[in-house]
């Protein structure tokens, strides 16, 4: 039976529109009545992705603004260097304040140039407002927001989002401003947290103790970024505290990101033997071979991913070969300097689970793409 084209049932149209980012959904709603009705279905909006580039003025037609009620998971991308894009993003976030049942997950992504001397007050203010009324929020990911996150935001999340299961505050900023006390308060309030991303300076010995407490959800992932001057000055987290945490959460995986600002001394303080490191990213201006050797000795059982940015050297090659020989669980290794052939041979020989690697023997043209293991 031949049906006229375009007359698909509403529920099928709705399932097609699920795959469209927000802008295309609003266009679809302007095609014809049947499509407008389908676009307004709640199922379309549970997962919504929005790209606020400079062409989009950030307004939803009235027939669709009610659909924001149905958004559970929002992925919002914008260009902080472009005013219309920021305004659209800020406006959209404000539209979400106070909606019921409210957001369950929020992920912010910034593209384009990073604006200099820009505190991002407008966007952060809107995020703050969203968190104030998002009692159902379970996931908050601010890793790709280039603005400094502060104690006020942490406290707002602590008070407003008790059901939080995953929280990423380990964004790339030059300076850190989230003190350990506010983070401690957040950890005490949010006992369902399973996944946590922080700057090193925000994590205190007391916080490790709270995370090891009995009456909270099992901790699956702790991602630590060590990059700012505050991180360099952070007090040492003793090995025993890590051991206790590991004992309490046997499945815990720690991801460590160590950046150029850290001196060798600080690096040694961060790399404790009992930390269950599963992913290590090194972008140090000083000695890298030492940390790689350390990882080979102490993180062999759990290490799944290694990323190295350093200058090529024979010491580094030797360290990588040693690591390859002792880390059977390794899935990915990415080295952004030239290595000698023995290094690549070592990883291919010793790491049966290897699925992707960047081990270049010559200086290829950038960008360096990884090789997938068949």
């Amino acid at each position: 039976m031949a049906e006229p084209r375009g007359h698909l049932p509403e529920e099928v149209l709705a399932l097609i529109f699920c795959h469209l980012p927000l802008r295309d959904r609003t266009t679809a709603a302007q095609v014809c009545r049947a499509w407008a009705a389908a676009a307004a279905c709640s199922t379309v909006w549970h997962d919504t992705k929005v790209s606020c580039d400079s062409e989009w003025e950030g307004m939803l037609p009235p027939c669709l603004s009610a659909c924001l009620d149905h958004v559970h998971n929002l992925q919002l991308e914008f260009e902080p260097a472009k005013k219309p894009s920021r305004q659209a993003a800020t406006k959209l976030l404000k539209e979400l304040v106070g909606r019921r049942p409210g957001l369950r997950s929020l992920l912010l992504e910034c593209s384009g140039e990073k604006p200099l001397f820009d505190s991002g007050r407008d966007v952060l203010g809107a995020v703050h407002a969203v968190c104030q009324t998002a009692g159902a929020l379970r996931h908050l990911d601010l890793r790709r927001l280039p603005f400094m996150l502060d104690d006020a935001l942490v406290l707002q999340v602590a008070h407003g989002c008790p059901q939080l299961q995953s929280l990423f505050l380990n964004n790339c900023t030059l300076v850190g401003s989230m003190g350990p006390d506010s983070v401690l308060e957040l950890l005490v309030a949010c006992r369902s947290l399973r996944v946590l991303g922080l700057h090193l300076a925000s994590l205190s010995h007391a916080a490790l103790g709270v995370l090891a407490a009995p009456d909270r959800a099992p901790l699956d992932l702790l991602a630590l970024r060590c990059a700012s001057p505050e991180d360099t000055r952070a007090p040492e987290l003793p090995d025993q505290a890590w051991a206790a945490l590991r004992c309490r959460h046997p499945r815990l995986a720690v991801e460590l990101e160590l950046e150029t600002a850290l001196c060798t001394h600080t690096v040694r303080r961060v790399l404790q033997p009992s930390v269950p490191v599963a992913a290590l990213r090194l972008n140090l201006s000083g000695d890298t071979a030492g940390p790689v050797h350390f990882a080979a000795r102490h993180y062999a059982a759990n290490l799944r991913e290694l990323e190295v940015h350093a200058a090529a050297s024979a010491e580094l090659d030797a360290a990588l070969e040693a690591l390859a020989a002792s880390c059977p669980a390794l899935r990915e290794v990415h080295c952004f300097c030239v290595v000698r052939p023995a290094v690549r041979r070592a990883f291919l020989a010793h790491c049966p689970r290897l699925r992707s690697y960047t081990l270049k023997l010559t200086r290829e043209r950038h960008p360096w793409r990884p090789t997938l293991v068949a």
Partner: protein
Amino acid sequence: MPSIKLQSSDGEIIEVDVEIAKQSEIIKTMVEDLGMDDEDDDPVPLPNVSAEILKKVIEWCTYHMEDAPPPPPQNYEDKAKKVMDIPIWDQEFLTVDQETLYELMMAANYLDIKGLFDVTCKTVANMIKEKTPEEIRQTFNIENDFTEEEEAQLRRQSLWREAK
């Protein structure tokens, strides 16, 4: 190898390996829960699927027989990573006229074959992306049934700048 007979809307009977057919949740339920056995030779009627489309569906299911079921999302990150990529084989398989694409989508929906339904939806979604309403109407041969006033209102709220 046990097989099952499927009857299309236009009366054609097609025999297919049971394991391949079980990619359809409907057929899987029939075979497993309702206990169809080998002696049961009656073809399963599929009044909503023509022979031509049924054959294509079987072709898709045969190719994807060995696919491991996707691992359940381990954590929030996995869930957020919605894969928009359509595998190359599926892209080629779905390079067909619109009518066939729609019929494949409806057949996948009716037979409850999640993988096929998913890729057909994504394919149609890709045809909608980054177009103006008029371009979409032309692509899908859809009539604009808004009234003049409704159109004017939509134009006022237009999200597209005139110069594109």
